[in-house]
Each structure stands twice: as C-alpha cells, then as structure tokens.
C-alpha cells in the first residue's frame, strides 16, 4: 500500500473510532450514574426515596419529595412566565417588526443566550431578591427573605427566553410567504393569519421549543442554587425557600464525601435529572426533525 492509501485508511478509521466513542458517551454517563445509584437502593426503596418528605442524610433519611415539589414549582412557574412572553416576542419579530427593529432586536436575543449562568445568578441576587422581598411579596402580604421559588422561577424564565424565541422565529420564517398571502387574500387580518395559519403550521416546532426550554430550566444548577434558598422542605407558597434536584447536587457536594450512602443518593438525583432532561430533549428533537422534513416544500 502506498503512503497515500495508508494515510487514508488510518485517517478514516481514526475518525470512526472517535465518532463512535462520542456517540456512546451518553450511554456511558447513564450507566455510570445508574451503577453509582444502586447502592442506595439496597437500603431504601424507590417509593420511599421519591415520596418521603424528609431529606436528612445525617439521619439516613433520603426523601426527595420536597425537592421534587420544589423542582416542579420552579420549572413550572418559569415556563408559565417564559412561554407566553417568548412566543409573543417571536411573533412580533417574525411578523410585525419593521426590518430595522428586527435587526436591532436579534443581537439582543443572541447576547442573552450567551450570558453565563453564574452571571444570571449574580444579577438575580442583586436585583430580583430585593425586588421580591421588598416589592412583590409585601404586595401579597407575605414576608420572605427573597431567596425563594419565585425568584428562581423568574431567573430561569429569562434564561429560557432566547431558546424558545429563536426556535420559534426560525420556524415562523420557514413558512412560505404564499401561505400567508393565501390567508390574507381572503381578508383575514395579520393577527388572524398568525392565530389560524402560522401557529397551526409551526405547532410542532413551538411545542419542541417549549420542551427544550423545559429541559434547560429543569437542569439549570448554578443560577437556581444562588437564589432558591436551599431549604429542603416542601415549599408552601411561591415565596417560600425551596430546593431543586439540580441545585441539591451543588449544595450537597461538600457533604456527600462523608458517606457512601449520601454519595449514592446524590448520584441517583443526578440520574433522575439526566433521565428527565434526556426524555424531554429526545421528544423535542424528534418532533423538530419530523416538522423540518414536512416543511421542505
């Protein structure tokens, strides 16, 4: 074999090895986390872990219920805030904004997407915590330190904006102009066209974007950890402090080395996090790919 062919062969095989290794990465992560979680299942049942309400590793209690509630609340409220604002913004950018405004707003969205999560956490600390404590909570007649579910939700909502907005704008742009013309020529207003044609045509992409946003919010660790309060009790209101699965991993990091059982419990938390985000992402990507194929006019 002459040198060129040899180089070719090796080069190609090397590429193959690398590619396969990376593709299998998520399998490796899954199995490693699973393996590490098994230990805690020897002494605690899954039901006990998921539904018991006391998280006291020092006393061998690993009830995740309060943390699960906290996670659902934080993520749920975050999406409740983010989804309408993002979709309306996306509609504005794609359908209503004059060309100049579009050019100005686009970089804002891109920059927002690039801000590191620590910085989000810091700004939430500096601005949202006092805001919630001194303005929003008193308005409802509640007292709070400001480190609570609501603050974490608002922070997450802002982090999720760019994801949903850019996916929605992209999918609105993919809809051919002639489809809009078809609706407008019957005498529909622009908004009616958006409601009845654009939303319908991009429904899969919008759903997919929301799922991806959910995955992002669910898995966000640092920013939430800085403002959610870190109390592992079931939150009674949005103004109570709480804890999320992702944030728990960071909070407990230094303690977990003290016992293998604790470590195993946290690995299980990581596994739950991984699996949930994975499922949402798989679903979202799946829908998105099918929608992309459909719209290749």
């Amino acid at each position, binding site marked *: 074999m002459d040198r060129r062919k040899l180089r070719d062969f090796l080069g190609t095989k090397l590429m193959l090895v690398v590619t396969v290794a990376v593709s299998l990465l998520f399998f490796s992560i899954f199995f490693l986390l699973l393996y590490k979680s098994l230990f805690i299942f020897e002494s605690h049942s899954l039901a006990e872990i998921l539904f018991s309400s006391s998280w006291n590793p020092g006393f061998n209690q690993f009830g995740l219920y309060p943390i699960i509630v906290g996670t659902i609340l934080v993520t749920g409220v975050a999406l409740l805030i983010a989804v309408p604002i993002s979709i309306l913004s996306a509609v504005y950018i794609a359908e209503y904004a004059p*060309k100049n405004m579009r050019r100005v707003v686009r970089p804002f969205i891109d920059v927002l997407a690039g801000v590191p999560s620590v910085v989000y956490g810091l700004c939430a600390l500096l601005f949202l915590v006092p805001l919630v404590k001194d303005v929003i909570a008193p308005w409802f007649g509640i007292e709070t330190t400001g480190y609570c579910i609501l603050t974490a939700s608002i922070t997450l909502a802002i982090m999720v904006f760019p994801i949903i907005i850019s996916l929605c704008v992209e999918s609105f742009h993919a809809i*051919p*102009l*002639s*489809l*809009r*013309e*078809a*609706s*407008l*020529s*019957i*005498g*529909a*207003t622009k908004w*009616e066209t958006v409601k*009845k*044609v654009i939303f*319908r*045509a991009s429904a899969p992409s919008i759903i997919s974007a929301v799922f991806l946003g959910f995955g992002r919010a669910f898995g966000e660790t640092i920013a939430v950890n800085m403002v959610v309060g870190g109390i592992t009790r079931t939150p009674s209101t949005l103004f109570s402090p709480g804890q999320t699965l992702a944030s728990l991993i960071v909070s407990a990091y230094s303690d977990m080395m003290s016992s293998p059982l604790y470590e195993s419990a946290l690995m299980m938390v990581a596994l739950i996090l991984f699996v949930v985000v994975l499922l949402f992402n798989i679903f979202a990507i799946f829908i998105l790919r099918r929608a992309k194929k459909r719209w290749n006019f």
Partner: protein
Amino acid sequence: MSTERRIQIETKNLNVSFHGHDVLRNIDITIPAKKLTAIIGPSGCGKTTLLKSFNRLLEIQDDVKISGQILVDGSNILRPRLDVPDIRKKMGLLSQKPYPLPMSIRDNVAYGLRIHSNKNKGEIEKTVEHCLQEVGLWNEVKDRLHDPASRLSVGQQQRLCLARAIAVQPEVLLCDEPTSALDPISAQQIEKLLLKLKKDYTVVLVTHTLRQAKRVADYVIFLYFGMVIEQGLADEFFNNPKNPETKAYLSGEIS
C-alpha cells in the same frame, strides 16, 4: 363589443419598486367587470406584481414602494387609513402553486366564512358544499371533508383554493398562472372553471402561455419590462396587434 362595459379596476400612473428597483412603471390600465382579462408578457416583467397590487398584497413584503392610484369601483384603494382586509375580501387570489391552509378540507373553505360572516354552523356547511360543487370537487371529497387538505392531489388542491376564494363572495378573482404547476388534465379543469366563473366574477388571469390567453381571454393586457405596451379586446389584440413589441411577442421572437 358589449355595450354595458363597466370598469371594475382602473389604475392611474401606478409605479411599484422593490428595494429601489422599478418593477412597474406608469401603468394605466382598465379591467372590465365580469369579463376575463388576461395579463400576458415574458417572465419577470411584473405581471404578478401588478396582480398583487390590486389586493394590496404587495405591502406585506419589505422595501416596497407603491405610488399612483388604483381605483376599484371608482374609489382609490391606495389611500391611507383604509381597512385593507375589507378590500382583500373583494378579491379572491389563486396562486401559481396551490397553498391549502394547514387544516381540513372543510375548514379551508369555511376559513373566510368564519372570519367574515355570522353564519351558524348549518349555514356554513351549506355554503361549503355549494362552493365545492361550483368547482367540481364535491363528489370527490364529500366523504372526507375532515381530512387534511394536504392529502389532496395538486389539481384538487388548486380547485380547493378556488372554492376557498369564492366562499367569501368576492367580486374579482385574481389568478396568478394557476395552471402552471398542474398536470394537463387538471389544468384543463381549472380553465373550464374560469370560463364558467367569469359570468359571475371579474377574472384577472396572469398567464405566460399565449395559447391559454387565446383560449379564455376577453381582454388582454400586454406587459413588457414593467410597462404596458398594449391592451384591448382579445380579438383585436391577437389578430391586429399595433405595437412592434406586441408583434414580436406574438410571433415568438421574444418570450
């Protein structure tokens, strides 16, 4: 020549430019009511632009400048503060490629009805049936009205778009090369439909096949590089063209 020749659409010194390029220049034309007027000319000469200016569909794109007057039944539709959706309701549009809305067959036809009229469900059903009958689709789809419109063949989709357009009772039908994306049989069906419909509607047909224009047109407007070269009765136009460019186009020298 018919003695009762009412003018439905008239343009006065219409100029349209896209991104600074002039597409239409000094257009003065008249479109008579309840006749079929064909707009012909080589590709890229502004025919579609002219058509879409009649229902003010041009302005949804960026960087469009329109000046002049477009009179529909005597009143200028280009004046500001006009209810544009209302004007559009008067004009139905049939595009080159059929664009069924992403909904069922029935909902496609009912789309305009639900927006504009206060009819109840029963009346809407009746109108849907009537329109589908008018375009000859009823027998083919009556058992699957709730199927998504995208499942129809291209020819059927085009007829569906026609039914959708006439459902809101427009006065004018704007057709932009509606048969160019269809197979010969479907194309023939559409042509026959247009001939039938021109008794009740004013039809403006953009076409780039001379033979089609000869088959269906009552009046012809010849557009070349954004300007009107000649317009008039079809018979006179085809048998006795006055302009040298018209003669060149008709003889196939330019296309």
